[in-house]
């Protein structure tokens, strides 16, 4: 399988605290790769370095052979890397469909044009993306009054707009009720499979992780302590130690 993202010797220290400690891994084509670990393990730091929000202390991030380190988030996005946030970031003064249209306008490099009416262009296409995530019936609603779970779906629709090769999702189901978590994650899995998008995601909900990930990375105190298939991770004594201080776990994964 082709390697989409190759992370080499990535590390970050904040005033002497080694938040991410020489991490190596790769994302392969078409896979759903989960990055898990306890709070403070360095997952979000890792993510922010991949997306260009933080500058790594050392290391390289190759996306389809090109080094992303030192590039701005918007440049990385243009290369075909999409992302969703742990805490949603949407345009609260616009309607739901306009949020998606905005991403399409940016993708087609139309944000500096002043002639057309923005609410008209790419509307059908935007609605088709909303349809994909089950929000089409709310397209004309004011984004600010959307329920939180729907905001997460909207972010997913926005992230799909530029047909990314790789999608980075920071806790895609954070703050959701259990039933909704499952439906959102299933939806994500179906879409990325359909469009052949590779996904790297972080998650705290083990049902979600073990139910959907193809492969799992485990971070603890900035170090990558395990990397393997779902079963390998489930039975890895080191991982069990980190999460529960021993004992068997993750039995009920659906």
């Amino acid at each position, binding site marked *: 399988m082709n390697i989409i993202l190759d992370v080499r010797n990535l590390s970050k220290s904040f005033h002497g605290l080694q938040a991410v400690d020489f991490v190596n891994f790769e994302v392969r084509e078409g896979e759903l790769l989960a990055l898990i670990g306890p709070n403070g393990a360095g997952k979000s730091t890792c993510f922010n370095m991949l997306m260009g929000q933080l500058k790594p202390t050392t290391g390289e991030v190759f996306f389809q052979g090109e080094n992303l380190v030192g590039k701005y988030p*918007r440049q990385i996005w243009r290369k075909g890397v999409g992302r969703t*946030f742990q805490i949603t970031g949407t345009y609260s*003064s*616009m309607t739901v469909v306009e949020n998606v249209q905005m991403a399409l306008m940016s993708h087609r490099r139309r*944000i500096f044009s002043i002639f057309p009416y923005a609410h008209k262009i790419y509307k059908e296409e935007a609605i088709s993306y909303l349809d994909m995530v089950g929000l089409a019936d709310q397209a004309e609603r004011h984004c600010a009054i959307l*329920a939180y779970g729907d905001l997460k779906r909207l*972010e997913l629709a926005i992230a799909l707009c530029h047909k990314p090769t790789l999608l980075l999702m920071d806790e895609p189901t954070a703050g959701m009720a259990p039933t909704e978590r499952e439906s959102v994650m299933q939806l994500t899995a179906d879409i990325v499979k359909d469009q052949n998008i590779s996904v790297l995601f972080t998650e705290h909900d083990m049902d979600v992780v073990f139910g959907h990930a193809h492969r799992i990375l485990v971070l603890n105190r900035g170090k990558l302590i395990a990397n393997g298939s779902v079963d390998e991770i489930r039975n890895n004594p080191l991982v069990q130690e980190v999460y529960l201080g021993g004992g068997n776990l993750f039995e009920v994964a659906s």
Partner: protein
Amino acid sequence: MGLFVAQVLTGLANAAALFLVASGLSLIFGVTRIVNFAHGSFYMLGAFIGYSLMQVLPGMFGFWASVVLAGLAVGVIGVIVEICVLRPVYKAPELFQLVATFGVILVIQDLALLTWGADDVLGPRAPGLKGIVRIMDEPVPKYDLALIAITPFILFGLWYLIARTRVGILVRAATQDREMVGALGVNQAWLFTGVFFLGATLAGLGGAIQLPKGGADLLMDFNILAAIFVVVVIGGMGSLPGAYVAAVLISVLNVFGVTYLPQSTLVLMFVVMAVVLMIKPYGLFGREEVAGEHGQVGEPERPIKPAGIKVRVLVAVGILLLALLPVFGSSFSQVLTADVIIFCLFAASLHFILGLGGLVSFGHAAYFGGGAYVAALLVSYLQTPMEIAFLLAPVGAGFAAFIIGWLCMRLTGVYFAMLTLAFAQLLWSLVYQWGEFTGGDDGLVDIWPSEWLNSTTPYYYFTLVFGIGGILLLRHVAHSPFGYALRASRDSARQAEATGINTKRVQWLAFTFAGAVAGLSGALFVFSKGSVFPTELEVARSFDALIVIFLGGVKTLSGAIVGGASLEYAKDFLTRFEYWRLTLGLIIIFVVILAPEGISGTLRKLAERIGIMKDPDSNHSKIRNPAVNAKAHTRENTRENTREDP
């Protein structure tokens, strides 16, 4: 050497009052997030009240008792202002309170005029400290030395209060996260009132303590306002030592400026501020403001839609009526309406960056006056035909906005606002003090339009075409992809950057565009008046536009127009009366309290309630899913809720 030392000492003494007033402003801003424009008025009241008390209380004890009592009296006035004017509007959109404090300025100005009369009063000299001391052969007033000695104690006292006492802990906690402090059982309302008391007291003390050096007059409120904002920003918002260092820096530099570079005095402190902010974006001792730290106040802005057919017809009828004005109106009504249109265009250009872009500029007059001066200079020196000068004015103003915008873009929030103010003041003082080129205080005169426009009615039509045209252009751009990108950059810069939008570039270009349109309004202005003076570049001019945007409603596209037209016509009517400031100030305060979403936003709400207009949000959910609307009001809880898909 002796002169040098003496000047440093004078500067240090001048810093005392500046520090007192600035630290009060800094405290109030830190805790309540209110940019208190009325702080200069508190300072003025301190001076006048102190003066009156000193007439009654004799001797050395009387002098110092008067200073303290004046401070406390102003503190009480501050409390009254806070309870009556600001408390009702804490929930209003950010910076809305600024408009309320502007109303307070006007009211206090006229009340002071009523009480103390129009003449300047000379402060009494402090008993026991009347003479001078010779230091290295240079005379230094004893009172200066007393001030220099007292100020560090005040600094220490304040620092102790903030850093070491329980009250100080509450104040600092509220500065960082006032919602959390409220959740922990602290009565926020009284904390705010208490801070206002303290801040106003400090301003009053500052006013009273400088009496022997400066006296009291009715202009001192505006005269100190710019300086204290500069001090607070240079020192870093919320930092007391920072305010002290900055006050000393500004005062000492000012004394030297007067001696060695007299033509630089107006601009000096703004140059210092611009340099400091470009090197240290959060002031000397300030810390970075985390975006969104204080949460959004008020309802989120509604989505915008181009006007429907009904509104278009209504606007067309309105324009037609304006076009018919010369038929049935007097020549005076044409001049007045042209003035209103010019002002509305200027306000609308500021609304473009402030409302849609979330970029608060305190110095937008730079581009209005800039455009006017570009046209005037071209006509005066190069005998440029009016038509060409008129078209080059927006280009010149846009260019200025392009350069200044580039320099300001790395800052955000209040710091951005202050840097735009600094550059506007820089331009103003350049025009003011470079007399041989710009005419200085005398302005540039004899700038009349070409023959075919040179009477009231043709120029009225000219203004109508370009004024309304400019406003419609701004509106159209607001609905274009560029306008949307600007709103996206304001709503969530994080998401915008993560989806390929260069937010800073979008904002920079919007700033330039708004500057160019302001320049257009300036050009219309200069040819209608036939002259231009430095006042067109002043802070007061910038604030005029700022005020009407908030009065009209910052969250509606029509806000600037509605506010601009209302205020201009109201001013024209009210200035015929003697105490018009008092009336206007009270009207502003009442509008602010009764219509916290601005005139236009409140009218829309009203129209929705009685059913003339539809509320898009509630209407939609009534059809689709009534449960969702109820949820919208408890959005915080929805994180834990499950939404059943139909």
